[in-house]
């Protein structure tokens, strides 16, 4: 540690007292040994004073709360308006699904998924379970992939989820190397986010398959209650530690969770 330069982010956290105990001790020792590091720390303290006097907490906190209200307050108020919930969510789901179908899915897939019994959309939605929908972009065409379909390294995959009434969820994947990847939410720590109920919701980014062999299996974990993401992450790592099991077994989760998985088989490369 004596010859290693302490990066700015570590020094910031040292000043805030938010480094791990080991790292805090290391930085502390280096501060004793290196006057230039002490100078950097003093400069940070001076910068804190300068910033808080130029941009005072009173004005800045008010500005932040005002921006929050302008950005999100309107949305919250609109969500709080009394509506006819079933009709509204059904209409929203239908309109979203229509956009997805028209733009994304080739005609043959639309025909394949169209109800053959003439039953109403509402009845089908009520019976829906939370699930993932996986698309592959190939050239200018985007195809929906079914469970067990073959994919290759370099294929670009777009994931969507349908919450089907479940309020909270997370999406992980395990590949044939036993690597666990979080796909949703974006931030790995804390509590699971609320799931958008607007029909089929696509994740904000596509995913390019790497050269991991055998398979890529996606898990959509949902619950009626908020849950600690670490619970699901740990279960995914446990399952991923045995690749053979990861190919077909479920995540071991406490009661209250619902899980859906879809596996894509890797072609040889």
């Amino acid at each position: 540690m004596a010859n290693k330069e302490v990066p700015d982010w570590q020094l910031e956290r040292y000043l805030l007292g938010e480094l791990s105990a080991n790292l805090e001790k290391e930085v502390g020792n280096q501060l004793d040994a290196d006057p230039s590091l002490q100078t950097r720390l003093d400069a940070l303290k001076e910068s804190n004073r300068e910033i808080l006097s130029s941009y005072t907490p009173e004005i800045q906190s008010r500005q932040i709360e005002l921006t929050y209200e302008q950005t999100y307050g309107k949305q919250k108020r609109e969500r709080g308006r009394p509506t006819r919930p079933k009709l509204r969510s059904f209409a929203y789901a239908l309109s979203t699904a229509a956009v997805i179908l028209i733009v994304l899915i080739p005609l043959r897939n639309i025909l394949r998924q169209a109800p053959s019994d003439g039953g109403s959309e509402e009845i089908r939605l009520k019976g829906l379970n939370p699930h993932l929908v996986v698309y592959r972009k190939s050239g200018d065409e985007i195809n929906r992939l079914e469970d067990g379909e073959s994919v290759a390294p370099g294929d670009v995959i777009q994931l969507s989820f349908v919450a089907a009434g479940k309020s909270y969820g997370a999406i992980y994947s395990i590949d044939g190397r036993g690597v666990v990847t979080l796909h949703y939410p974006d931030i790995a720590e804390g509590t699971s986010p609320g799931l958008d109920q607007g029909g089929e919701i696509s994740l904000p980014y596509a995913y390019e398959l790497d050269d991991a062999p055998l398979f890529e299996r996606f898990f959509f974990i949902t619950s009626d209650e908020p849950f600690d993401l670490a619970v699901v992450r740990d279960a995914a790592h446990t399952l991923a530690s045995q690749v053979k099991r990861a190919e077909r077994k479920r995540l071991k989760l406490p009661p209250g969770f619902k899980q859906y998985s879809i596996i894509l088989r890797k072609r040889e490369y």
Partner: protein
Amino acid sequence: MLDTKFLYERYGPMVLRRCRYLLRNEEKALDAMQDTFVRVIHHKKRLNMDAPSSLLYRIATNVCLNMLRSERRHPHTHDEKILMSIVDVEEHESNIVNRHLIDKLFGRESQSTKTMAVLHYVDGMTLQEVSNEVGLSVSGVRKRLRGLKERAKHLHKDFYNG
């Protein structure tokens, strides 16, 4: 309920310095700093606030990357070249998946891989440290960064040496 004043008083200077470093523009840095706190307030229920500095640092990075994306600044320093290369990846990455289509339909985007790239290539965090920051395994971080690098054919050569 988060105490915005307390949060700003304790973390505002760190967040503003981060935004200043990435954006090199006081007015934009101030906007980005405020936006960072707005996002924290909005997502407060699902955020682990045990050690907010790490979280705020990452969110600030994400906010700044979003701003840089629309700005196309000419890089002057070594770190800026790498930073703008990471920003450029998004354009390339998004083109692959038909950016117009995805953006129009889903109206959201993730900077998580690019945020990880900034933490690793610009801030000098090790893969283990990035892993600790974002809550992914080291191999998961490596995988995401590798994917980003592979798509970034036009990046500065130093990016590849990271």
